[in-house]
């Protein structure tokens, strides 16, 4: 009997699904090796089919997307129960990723904007907020509830392994899947729980071909403000790059395209909080002797919090920005 | 100016010798062109120029050329007197450029009297 594979897409953009398909003809090997039992994006499976499975029936489940709604959370718990191995696949599941940036706001302010203040909302439906249960003549309509805070997969269920990246690089997916196939085929022991698959143990700098010098940053430039030297470290040139605090594995994709690393592979091993580490590192190398000078240099960097936590806000120590007002009872 | 060598001293001294001869009032031969009003009217200027030219051309260094007033024989002007050092002066008369040239070549340079043009030997002198 073939091992069973499930793939699920929670709160995310879908890029991870495309990345899976991006392994090209190797997908056939996967399809050949596995019995794909759940992949809503590609095949028509129903939740009830999964619910009907015995616990632990699925050999491996690749779960991508963050936990934004009650539905996400339900499916996460469901697939956890049904799967032997649950993999947080991609940055959203691992660390919140772009959906996690919603943690800058709370549910109320998001709703206020999306259903009321956004210019694209038409007049009739302005201010109509979604509610979990709507009573209609035909009966009750239930929609998933919108949580106040975006969470990562491991904040709701136990996760066995992680494959980072936004999206994970296809070659890394292939490596990881190949390894899994290898293990299953040859009955090898599984790696320890919590292992990050499809990535390195160093940082982006390890794969970055640019030459680095001793650093002394006088100001930050946005990419459009400067033509960077293609051979020199971008940070040395004042272009924000969170590569030093980002796990290796992507083969320095962005820096090779003259763009500073954005940090999608998440914090390197041992680092608890990617953003805090970036603060520690950058403040060590900016050329300032007084608080005023430091502040002046920092002001040349747009949105430091968003920059440092672009992908890891939901998994950071503080997890979210504190609402301006005390959360009311409606918030969670 | 390149650095002077010992030979150059001689060269310079040679080059200036004519001038020095004039200044020292020395010279082997003294040619006097008589340049009174009559002489000038008869063309003494031309004779003078011829002598000057000859001196330049032949690069002669020990001949001095001088003028005097009317020699008293106005009818035979232009006239010139050639006086070789230690010899009696010789007066030439009715000169023209050709004759002057010949006198210069023969008498002045070689010391051979040009009898055809000569008037007399010996003359009164200023002092």
């Amino acid at each position, binding site marked *: 009997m073939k091992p069973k594979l499930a793939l699920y897409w929670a709160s995310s953009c879908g890029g991870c699904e495309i990345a899976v398909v991006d392994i090209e003809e190797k997908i056939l090997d996967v399809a050949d090796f596995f019995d794909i039992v759940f992949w809503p994006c590609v095949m028509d499976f129903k939740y009830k089919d999964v619910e009907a499975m015995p616990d632990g029936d699925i050999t491996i489940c690749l779960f991508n997307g963050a936990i934004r709604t009650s539905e996400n959370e339900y499916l996460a718990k469901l697939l956890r129960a049904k799967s032997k191995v649950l993999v947080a696949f991609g940055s959203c599941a691992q660390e919140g990723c772009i959906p996690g940036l919603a943690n800058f706001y709370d549910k109320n302010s998001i709703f206020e904007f999306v259903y009321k203040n956004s210019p694209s909302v038409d007049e009739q439906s302005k201010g109509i907020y979604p509610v979990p249960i709507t009573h209609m003549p035909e009966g009750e309509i239930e929609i998933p509830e919108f949580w106040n805070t975006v969470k990562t997969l491991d904040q709701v269920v136990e996760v066995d392994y992680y494959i980072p990246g936004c999206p994970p690089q296809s070659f890394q997916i292939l490596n990881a899947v190949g390894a899994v196939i290898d293990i299953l085929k040859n009955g090898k022991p599984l790696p320890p729980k919590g292992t990050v698959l499809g990535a390195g143990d*160093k940082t982006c700098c390890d794969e970055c071909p640019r030459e680095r010098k*001793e650093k002394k940053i006088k100001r930050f430039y946005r990419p459009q403000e400067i033509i960077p030297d293609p051979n020199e470290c971008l940070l040395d040139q004042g272009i924000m790059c969170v590569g030093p605090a980002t796990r290796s594995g992507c083969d320095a994709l962005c820096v090779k395209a003259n763009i500073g690393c954005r940090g999608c592979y998440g914090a390197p091993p041992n680092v608890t909080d990617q953003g805090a580490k970036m603060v520690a590192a950058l403040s060590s190398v900016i050329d300032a002797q007084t608080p005023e000078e430091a502040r002046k240099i920092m002001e040349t960097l747009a949105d430091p919090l968003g920059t440092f936590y672009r992908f890891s806000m939901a998994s950071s120590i503080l997890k979210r920005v504190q609402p301006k007002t005390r959360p009311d009872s409606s918030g969670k | 100016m390149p650095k002077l060598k010992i030979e150059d001293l001689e060269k310079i001294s040679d080059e200036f010798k004519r001038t020095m001869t004039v200044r020292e009032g020395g010279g082997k031969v003294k040619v006097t062109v008589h340049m009174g009003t009559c002489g000038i009217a008869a063309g003494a200027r031309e004779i003078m120029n011829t002598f000057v030219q000859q001196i330049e051309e032949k690069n002669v260094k020990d001949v001095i050329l001088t003028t005097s007033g009317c020699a008293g024989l106005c009818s035979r002007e232009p006239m010139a007197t050639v006086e070789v050092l230690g010899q009696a002066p010789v007066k030439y008369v009715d000169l023209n450029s050709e004759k002057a040239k010949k006198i210069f070549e023969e008498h002045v340079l070689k010391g051979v009297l040009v009898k055809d043009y000569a008037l007399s030997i010996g003359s009164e002198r200023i002092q």
Partner: protein
Amino acid sequence: MITVNIDGKDIQVAEETTIVKAAESAGIWIPTMCYSELFEPYGICRLCSVEIIRGKRTRIVTACNYPLRENGLKIRTNSPVIQEIRKVLIELMLSRWPNVPVVKNMAASLGVIEPKFVSLERDEAEDACILCGMCVNICRDVVKANILGFANRGIKREVVLPYEKMNSECIVCGACAYVCPTGHIKIKSLDYERGAVADWYLGPKTAINIPTLQAVPRVPKIDEESCIKTQTGGCGICSTYCEPEAINYEDKDEEVEIEVGQILLATGFQLIDLKQMPQYGYGRLDNVYSSLEFEHMLNSTGPTGGLVKCKDGSEPRAVGIIHCIGSRDENYHKYCSRVCCMYALKFAHLVKDRTKAEVYQFYIDMRAFGKGYEEFYKRLLDEGVNMIRGKVAEIAEVHSGSDGKPYLLVKCEDTLIGKFREIALDMVILCPAIEPQFDAADVKKIFSISQSPDKFFLERHPKLDPISTMTDGVFIAGCAQGPKDIPDSVAQASAAAARMLSLISLGEVALDPVKAEVVDEYCSGCRICNNLCPYGAISFVDDKKISNINEMLCKGCGTCVAACPASAITGKGFTDMQILSEIEGLLSI
């Protein structure tokens, strides 16, 4: 050596000896007025003219600069011709400067009383300049400052300063005034700033001096600020007089690097500048002294030979000693300087001992806390010293005492009788506060130690470790650590020495294990840390493309640990995990 004959005496002299010196060695006097051994003979007074006889030829030369070179030369120093010359010359001088003592004396010794000339340039002054040129020569040849020179020629010749103005090139050595035979050049002191009483200035008085009489080693040294040699390269006279050739001008203060394992800082103290307290009149009023100056006066080798005297030489009738000048004072130093009470008592005792003066002590509290001190205090009370408890508000000079002598009026409050008092004194001694050396902050930085709020060096622990500092191997003792008297200083210094010796006898020191370390597997060589280490312990390994920490250089501050974005640096003893756990632990209750 050659032999010459001077006035019939055969004399052996070295070649090139001048006639003057040769004659001097033979005890023959030759008059001179511009000659000095300090500089090249100038030879302008011509009084030293002598006759030299070479065969049949007789020649008149000046003895001061004629070098003897030939054997058998005959010299007559006092022939009639010579006498005539000298007479006329001195008459010429006497006619111009009739009242200058050196001229008069010389004239007298040459038998001239009245000159037969009448000089139109006659100068009656006793200290007139006689144009001997000694000042110019010493300034040029010896001092090498070359300030003085002659102006004008002939009879109008005069000695001048450049542009006839005071000149900054003048090093004020005073050599010109020293050599001036008539006293025409005078030194005027424009500088009263050096000490309250110019004559009692404690610093060096001559360029070569023994710093203090009790100096150890008791050898003279050259004061570079006033030595002519160091200023102009001239002079050097002392070396010609020093037979053992012990004078070395090249010797300079040098910075010597010594490798040591431990350092004891005993940099001492300074006294507060009393001039910032004008109410006490220090530096302004006569007979107001600081305690150190008074100590100097009491010294038997001091300016008064140990006698207590007012500036006018009289014995004071009443002496006041004022405690706590700048100590225990909110405006200056809050702390107690600790030593003043006892030395003030000693002063009182000595004044009583040496004069008949009344002694007044103005104190806030008497602090006689040491062994035997209280007993001394008691003894003083028995000696009849007036103790006034209260701070002095002001000292004023009153010019018309009953006997016409000015005196000092001390205004204070006597808190014991609760009255405001004015006390007339002839002399006041101020007890200035002990304060840290002016450069204590610099010293502190050099040794990475701290200063306590009063700016004395801070000990590691005020009770348990008063001799060591936060920096291992650096110890403190004496007043550098805080005001203390001699027994306390000795005790502290001995303790520090013992501590240092114990470390030395151990033979090795244990290093703090707190060090940072790069974990190669996690370092990607981003080079963020490379510039951070003040000790240069972090280097970039080019072939491995990672950074590395030299454990021997690392002092374990942990800055790089915090900065490493990959957490690839761990700080032993202070790892992330340890600190995070501490936080967790602290906040769990």
